[in-house]
């Protein structure tokens, strides 16, 4: 891991919720967090504490940063998009304006930006699209042609279709049930888009299975995939070693690397997709320090 990443600055602040609204199946929150807002880059995330003084829920929950406004009426704000799936996300989604939440961020590595104005395709599954609009703007500022593919199980689980049309040069929508856009997966239209635009980079954010297929399609069509993963994290700041996954390093060797500090964005072709299986990730036998017979 580079010295730079580790020494990257990070803020911890008690953020006031200044807006919260329902967007389809999600809750979109705006938090006053000037320290985070000032430092963040697209692809980074924040980790939020759950519950108040009586909380038995100790671990923070991670959310991609959807948008930052480094200054404004309230000071800098950070926006996130929350899918309420369990006790922590429910608590966060229920916060009302003026409630406070303890925020740590920005965390992790941002999406790397191309140094020349290549075409890019941004693929988001469900709330996975949240960090992509900001990325799209930055790419277009650099002169990149940007297209977006948004996919979800059904229309209510799509996020940001309108915003996508505003911030990109082309938008394709897929849903599993055909309730919006074309029926199918994001990987279906992807080959055509890469080929047509001559895209050099495909950025992806969404479930693991989707990231794997994006990587495969990108590779097959001559593009580099940059994917933001979502592993279970206890600390989010690099100290607990729970969020690891097998990734091939520049020396060609596989290591169990921390997705919170060396990710969440990885080159798709560096991820050992073969080791993932139903929510588990094995340690590949050829990984550095892999257990010998008997295991550890």
């Amino acid at each position, binding site marked *: 891991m580079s010295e730079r990443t*580790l*020494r*990257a*600055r*990070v*803020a*911890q602040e008690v953020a006031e919720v200044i807006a919260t609204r329902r967007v389809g199946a999600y809750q979109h929150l705006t938090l006053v967090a000037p320290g985070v807002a000032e430092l963040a880059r697209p692809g980074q995330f924040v980790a939020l*504490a759950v519950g108040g003084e009586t909380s*038995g*829920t*100790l*671990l*923070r929950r991670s959310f991609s940063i959807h948008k930052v406004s480094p200054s404004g009426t309230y000071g800098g704000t950070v926006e996130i998009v929350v899918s309420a799936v369990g006790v922590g996300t429910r608590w966060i989604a229920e916060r009302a304006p003026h409630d406070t939440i*303890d925020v*740590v961020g920005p965390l992790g590595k941002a999406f790397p930006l191309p140094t020349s104005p290549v075409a890019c395709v941004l693929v988001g599954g469900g709330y996975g699209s949240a960090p992509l609009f900001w990325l799209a703007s930055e790419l277009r500022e650099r002169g990149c042609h940007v297209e977006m593919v948004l996919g979800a199980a059904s229309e209510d689980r799509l996020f940001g279709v309108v915003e996508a049309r505003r911030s990109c040069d082309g938008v394709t929508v897929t849903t599993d049930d055909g309730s919006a856009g074309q029926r199918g997966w994001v990987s279906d239209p992807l080959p055509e888009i890469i080929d047509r635009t001559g895209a050099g980079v495909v950025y992806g954010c969404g479930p693991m299975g989707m990231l794997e297929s994006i990587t495969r399609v990108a590779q097959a069509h001559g593009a580099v995939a940059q994917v933001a993963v979502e*592993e*279970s994290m*206890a*600390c*989010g*700041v*690099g*100290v*607990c*070693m*729970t969020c*690891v*996954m097998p990734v091939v390093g520049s020396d060609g060797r596989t*290591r*169990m690397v921390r997705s919170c*500090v060396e990710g969440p964005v990885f080159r798709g072709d560096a991820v050992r997709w073969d*080791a993932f299986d*139903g*929510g*588990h*990730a*094995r*340690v590949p036998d050829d*990984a*550095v*320090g*892999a*257990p010998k017979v*008997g*295991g*550890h």
Partner: protein
Amino acid sequence: MVDLSVDLPVDLSVDLSVDLGGGRRLPNPLMTASGCAANGKELHRFFDVADLGAFVTKSVMADPRSGRGTPRMAETPSGMLNSIGLQGPGIDAFVDEDLPWLKSVGARVLPSIAGSSSTEYAHVAATLRESRAFDAVVGVEVNISCPNVANRGLVFACDPMASAKVIALVREQLPRDIPVFAKLSPDVTDITAIAAACVKAGADGLTMINTLLGMVIDTDRMRPQLGGVTGGLSGPGIRPVAVRAVWQVRQAMFEGRMPTVPIIGVGGVRTGRDALELVAAGASAIQVGTAVFNDPSAPVRVLRELGELLRAKGFDRFTDAVGVAHGR
């Protein structure tokens, strides 16, 4: 680094320094807990790791280790379960990179060492001793809660003899002025027996407690949630077990059933009040583990809160509070 100087230093009217052996006085009793703070760089973004009494590093073994597959953790009520499998760079990389970095920022270091045989422990200790940054080391913590490959995989800390052998070998490798701390597991019928065996074998102090053996079932998949099946339970939920363990061992010392050595208390500390519980039960230093995942600056916050509490209670010196709950 986030500037914490407005909050620090702790009120100077309380003398927080403590001597844990080896003739070095630590400026204060607060430490990270092994495996909950990596090797320093990550938390140095949140506070100056040199502000701690000592920085305890992730247990390091002889060779690089990948650790276990994932999931490696499950959240539990007021705690968590982990099964990392001692992932780490190996002792050579540790002494080449991590220890020098910690020294460069002025940290006092309590490296935690581990092994799957007593000779591995000894080798790790010897490599540490020879390292160029060894003068940053203020003591060595021996994590004897690893499975002992020679003994059906039972952890060393469950057996007084196996524990004693490891401690004796490690003690031999290190200079006399480097105190050796044996880190004990609470998963035993009588922790005072293990504690006494370790001290007899040469431990200069004890760290209590490591995690409790626990397990979570993923009820969606109806199988163990952790890749490693069982894991270690930590966090505020287990604090009463840590307080009890420290109390029992300190009581055994008071009653002359074993020699008196310093105890480092660890287990479920989240606030200064929690730290004070362990101190009153007999701990001369405090480690903050899982609470760091909730609040990355927890160790320095706990230090500040502990100092304020001691002052409010009229203590001039931290050491006067150690073990005071005995005989009240």
